[in-house]
């Protein structure tokens, strides 16, 4: 069983502040440690559940996609760190049996979603993919889905876990690391409890591989992106762009990945 894990930082237990998500604040260095330990818990659980090959993508964009503490990582996986690559999640292909999303956050605009945003917290107001509001968690699942790969585990706050159940169905495993009370406040489980839960749910997720359908959003793919400011849309240049209104653009592609690459 070959598993792809993509990680983010905002959904990690203990992370609630923006300062924790980017350098140079010392809190960011602490958050890297928390992230690394959650990755290790997920790798351990996946191995216990039968994974034989694991690739973990350091997917949090700050610090050029270098967030794990390399020599504290679990020995049982390979790790992809740094940026950029030629294409969005271009290492995901149909050789994988499932993907996990670790440390995910809710889409922009979600009430009580810790550090909620979609891609850019300053510029992106809402993303719709083929008419459906979608965040980063959903879009990663769609890219995996285009290869027939199901997303079987999502870890993060209550809001992103609700979003995952809503989008991916009741069979997807979730591990709730914290319950948001506002964008920057949460009741968070202890580190040990969070890691234990992630490990247990990662193991359980391995048994869901045949139960969770790959997310199929159809083809072609239309991404409608509403910005927060007119000026964000005014200045935006990308392939196949159509301007829908003052703050909104649309791009298309044959697949989710191609549409997203066109957006960049």
């Amino acid at each position, binding site marked *: 069983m070959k598993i792809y894990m993509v990680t983010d930082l905002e959904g990690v237990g203990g992370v609630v502040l923006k300062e924790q998500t980017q350098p140079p604040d010392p809190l960011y260095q602490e958050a890297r440690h928390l992230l690394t330990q959650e990755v290790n818990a997920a790798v351990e659980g996946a191995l216990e559940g039968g994974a034989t090959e694991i690739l973990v993508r350091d997917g949090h964009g700050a610090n050029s996609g270098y967030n794990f*503490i390399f*020599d504290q990582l679990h020995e049982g996986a390979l790790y992809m760190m740094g940026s950029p690559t030629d294409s969005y999640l271009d290492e995901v292909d149909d050789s994988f049996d499932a993907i996990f999303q670790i440390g995910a956050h809710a889409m922009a605009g979600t009430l009580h979603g810790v550090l909620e945003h979609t891609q850019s917290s300053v510029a992106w107001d809402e993303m719709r993919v083929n008419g459906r509001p979608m965040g980063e968690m959903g879009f990663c699942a769609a890219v995996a889905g285009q290869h027939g790969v199901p997303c079987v585990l999502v870890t993060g706050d209550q809001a992103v876990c609700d979003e995952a159940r809503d989008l991916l169905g009741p069979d997807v495993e979730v591990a709730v690391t914290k319950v948001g009370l506002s964008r920057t406040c949460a009741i968070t489980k202890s580190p040990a409890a969070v890691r234990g839960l992630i490990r247990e749910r990662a193991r359980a997720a391995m048994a869901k591989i045949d139960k969770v359908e790959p997310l199929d959003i159809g083809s072609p793919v239309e991404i409608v992106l509403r910005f927060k400011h007119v000026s964000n849309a005014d200045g935006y240049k990308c392939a196949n762009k159509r301007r829908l209104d003052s703050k909104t653009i649309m791009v298309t592609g044959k697949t989710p990945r191609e549409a997203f690459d066109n957006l960049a």
Partner: protein
Amino acid sequence: MRIYIITDLEGVGGVVLDQQTRPGGPLFDEARRLQTNEVNAAVEGAIEGGATEIIVHDAHGSVGYNFLFDKLHPGAQYLFGADTDTYLAALDASFDGLFLLGMHAMAGTRRAVLEHTWSPSAWDEMRINGRPMGEIGLMAAIAGEEGVPTLLVTGDQAVHDETREVLGPDVEIAVTKIGLSRHCAIMKPAGQVGRLIRASARAALSKIGKVKPLDIGRPAEITIRYKHVSMADGRKCAGKRRLDARTIAVTGATVRQAFDNLS
């Protein structure tokens, strides 16, 4: 058996960003720790393979001080610092083999982590006697002039390919990561990399006598194509010839001498 080990930082497992290779942030200190562990693995493997004397040269950066000194393996001696009278001054014919650790591919290589030759901002291409070469080829050629074969090279997949091209099929290579772009790679975990380097270092000792020293012929001509005309305009060094707007050539009786003339 006397082994000379030259280390760089870009090819170390876990290193993909510029900020990991320069002082000033926490990631640099992490990278020094990762590098020190790889050095220790190589020293351990070399000793297991029969090395009796080892000098490890900390060659990254203009200062040449990167190892975490009190974490270093007790079985070797360590050369820190820079500004010796001649390039790689301590590397002479008394050594039986050379290791190149933590190396990076030559400038311009695709899917090569932190690819460059000498100066990422200024050097576009180096040729030695007509052949495109990076730092691996340069160091191997200088060792070769002393009759010392390069036994082991460690670094990313691009380093592997470059080493095979320049040094042939017999040199031992340990691949630490596979570059997807200049600043992104798929990496084995640190413990696996350490064990691989140790095993490769041990195996490399058994290649003494089998791997030939690199011979690029004499005299040596090094041509440097810069990225900007202004860099060639301002370049003053012994025996310099200006080949075109961006390119200069220097010569020497040996590669080492030609390289010294360049600096």
